[in-house]
């Protein structure tokens, strides 16, 4: 009995958290069979087991793979572009007051507005192929990366910079030796946020004006009352979100131990 108690105490966090999720899944599975749903709702309802079965079916029948690849490409390319633009720009903005001042209103304005608002515009410009989605992913992921890099650079300790300067370092060396290492925790946080935004961009981008991709799959399944397919899509995105952000979170917690302010963003 005592060992049970001590095991519980050690793993209390996981037991409570995991147990709750398990409970919800079980409830979802069994309650519909116990309670009869109003006629309308049952048309759109589904249960975890059905979702799993549908998923298996879709994979076996090779119906889901092409959607997945398209979404994956949109995600990867958009995110890569965001990193390629966001990091250097954040560095420059952080170091140069002039550039910061000039770009600040735009960054503030575009950061406050949901990037989704430009989707009709991008569809108008780029059609319903993958490029309109890539651009949505790009600007969605850009801002967390840009802003967090900027904050990381700006928050570098003046004292440290002066120390390095006193050894005769030029701007480039200051960057390399002090600014960049200092910024890494911030950048990692930005990356985590960017991944979430990028996934969101893929989903939402594919809802409107798309013919392929997981988001499209979800949207068309919804209109055809195939709730199970919808949940397959949602579950895949949820899984991807966790899969991609968990390792980043691990790295982040290691790095923010000495820079706790970096992790304050959401």
């Amino acid at each position, binding site marked *: 009995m005592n060992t049970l108690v001590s095991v519980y105490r050690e793993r209390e966090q996981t037991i409570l958290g995991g147990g709750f999720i398990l409970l919800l899944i079980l409830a979802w599975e069994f309650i519909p069979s116990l309670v009869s749903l109003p006629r309308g709702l049952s048309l759109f309802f589904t249960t975890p087991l059905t979702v799993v079965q549908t998923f298996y079916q879709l994979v076996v029948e090779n119906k889901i793979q092409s959607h997945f690849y398209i979404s994956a490409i949109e995600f990867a390319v958009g995110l890569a572009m965001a990193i390629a633009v966001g990091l250097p720009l954040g560095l420059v903005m952080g170091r140069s007051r002039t550039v910061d001042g000039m770009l600040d209103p735009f960054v503030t304005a575009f950061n406050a507005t949901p990037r989704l608002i430009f989707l009709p515009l991008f569809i108008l410009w780029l059609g319903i192929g993958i490029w309109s989605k890539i651009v949505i992913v790009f600007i969605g992921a850009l801002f967390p990366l840009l802003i967090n890099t900027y904050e990381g650079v700006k928050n570098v300790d003046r004292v440290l910079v002066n120390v390095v300067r006193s050894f005769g370092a030029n701007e480039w060396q200051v960057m390399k030796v002090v600014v960049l290492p200092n910024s890494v925790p911030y950048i990692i946080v930005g990356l985590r946020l960017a991944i979430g935004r990028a996934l969101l961009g893929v989903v939402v981008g594919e809802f409107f004006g798309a013919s392929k991709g997981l988001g499209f799959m979800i949207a068309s399944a919804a*209109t055809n009352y195939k709730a199970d397919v919808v949940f397959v899509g*949602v579950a895949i995105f949820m899984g991807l979100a966790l899969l991609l952000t968990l390792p980043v979170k691990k790295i982040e917690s290691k790095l923010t131990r000495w820079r706790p302010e970096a992790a304050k963003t959401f």
Partner: protein
Amino acid sequence: MGFKEKYYEYQRPILGMVSVVGLVILWELVFTYLIPLNPFFFTKPSLIAVAFREQIFGGSLWSDLVISSKAFIWGFSLAIIVGIPIGAVMGWRRRVEYTLDPFLTALYASPLVALAPLLIVVLGVGLVPKVFLVFLLAVFPFIFNTAAGVRATDRLLINVVRSFGGREKDLYLKVIFPSTLPYIVAGARIAIGRGIVGILVGEFYAASEGIGFAISRFGDTYMLPEMFSAILVLMIVAVALTEGLRKLEVVLAPWRVGQEAR
């Protein structure tokens, strides 16, 4: 030299204004004199300004804004009413946090908007699905930020108030609440963006009114200046709300300097 000092003090806003005004002027000049303007593809500031005035006073832009705002306010208020208490309990009781946190984090990490088509099919078109969507998206920042704020309450201050004879209710009113308030406001700031996404998704997908619908309709009919002006309106609203909350955060918590990246 008075001028130079003034410049350094106001450097940021001056540069900001210069670049915005400069961009607008450049944009107008380029498309008036340099590059021929394809009206099905792009537009320029003068046309946007005209469309803006037309739509606000003559067209439906104003009423669209009101409609979208109604749904937004309803959903946002629900998010506050539900999110803050849950967050508070989570922050105060470790066990509740352990139980709910993984589930909520999974929900927060997953693109909940993916459920939007299903919601619309179930709940129909109109106010209800939009409100639900806004709520679903905006509730999480309130939950997480309130929990973080409660958790971050300085234990020393709790001891101080207790040592002067404060009871449970005094602890809540005089320490926990004021200490958590800046966090809640920060959560509100994040929730605004997410809530607007909810409105847009709801209205892009299946709506007949609202500003999101207006934008997509203008896009479908290649009315570019109108589209840009609708986008501009929403941008102004979003920035006003977000920056307003940011200022509120500073007012409420002047001792927390330089935190929270945007």
